[in-house]
C-alpha cells in the first residue's frame, strides 16, 4: 500500500464528513478541524479509514496527531505491520 492510497482513503471519508469540502482543498499539512470537521466527524473519518485499510491504531496514539499527514503516516505504518501483529 502506498502513501498516496492511504491519503486517498482518508480524503474520501473526510469529504464525506464535511459538507462542501472538495479534494483540491484538502491540504494534508492542515488538521481536519481546520478543514471544517468537528470532533465527531474526525472520529468517524479515522474509524472509517481504519476499517477500510484493515488496520487498528490505539486511541492514545491517535490523540497525539496534529494534522492529516501525521494520520496518513500512522495509518501507513500500521498497514505495513505484519497482519498477526495488528491489534
Amino acid at each position: 500500500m502506498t502513501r498516496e492510497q492511504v491519503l486517498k482513503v482518508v480524503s474520501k471519508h473526510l469529504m464525506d464528513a464535511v459538507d462542501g469540502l472538495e479534494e483540491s482543498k484538502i491540504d494534508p499539512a492542515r488538521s481536519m478541524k481546520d478543514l471544517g470537521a468537528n470532533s465527531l466527524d474526525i472520529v468517524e473519518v479515522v474509524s472509517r479509514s481504519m476499517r477500510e485499510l484493515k488496520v487498528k491504531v490505539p486511541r492514545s496514539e491517535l490523540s497525539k496527531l496534529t494534522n492529516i499527514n501525521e494520520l496518513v503516516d500512522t495509518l501507513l505504518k500500521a498497514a505495513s505491520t505484519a497482519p498477526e501483529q495488528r491489534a
Partner: protein
Amino acid sequence: MGVDTHSAAALVQLSLSPDFDHVGILRIADADGRNALSEPLVHALLARLAEAAQDERIHCLVLCGLPDVFCAGASRDMLASIVQGRIAPTDILLSKAVLDLPMPVVAAMAGHAIGGGLALGLCADILVLARESRYGASFMNMGFTPGMGITKLLEHVMSPALAAEILFSGEPRRGRDFIGMTGVNYIVPRVEVEERAFAVAARIAEKPRTSLQLLKRTLSLPRRQAFEATRTMESLMHEISFGQPDAAKRIEENYD
C-alpha cells in the same frame, strides 16, 4: 451526593420563554463538560425537570443544549463509576423523568446527541434535529450494551430495522442522513433548529394545560410502557456486559 445549588443551576437552566406564553425552556449548558452526563449534571437535570413538572405556567417545554452539542451521553467518570459498581445504570432515571413530564416536550437538538444524550432527546414528544449534527448510539463502540431505554426509544422515530443498525453499529450519523428515513418531525439547518422548535412549542402552548396533560399521558403511554419493559432487559444486559473482565479496558480504549 451533595450538589452545589448555584453551580447546578448553571449547568442546567430552567426559564420561561420571553417570547412565547407558557413555553418553558430547559437548557443543558455544561460548556466545560461538553454536556456529557456527569453525576453533577445528571443531578442538576433531575432537579430542573422536577421543577418544570411542578410549574403550572409551563404548557410546553423545549429541551435545548449547547449550539454544537445537545448532550454527549455518559462522561468518562460516570462510566468508570458504573464499571466499578458505584452506580447502577438503572439508577440514572433521566429518561423516565423526561417521559413522565406532564406537559408536551419538544427536543431542540441543534448539536450532537450521542448515547445517553440521544436517549434523552428521544424521550421528548417532538424532535427537531440539525442536518449537520451527528446522532448515534455509541454504547456498543465501547463494548457494552445500550441503556437509558434507547433500545426501544429509537423505534418511536424510526423503523425497528434502522434502529437495530444504529444500535448494533454505533455509527454516529449526520442529521441529513436521516432525512426521508425516519419519523423525526424536523431535520433543518442547525441555525434554524431552535427557531423551529419554539414555533412548534408556541402553537402547542396556546392550548389548555389540563387538556395537554391528558393528551400527553395518552400519547406517551406506549413509550412509557416500552421504557419500563426495556429497563428490565437493559439492566440484565448491563450486569453482564459491564461485568466482563475487559469492560474497563474497552471503555478506556474506545471512549471518544
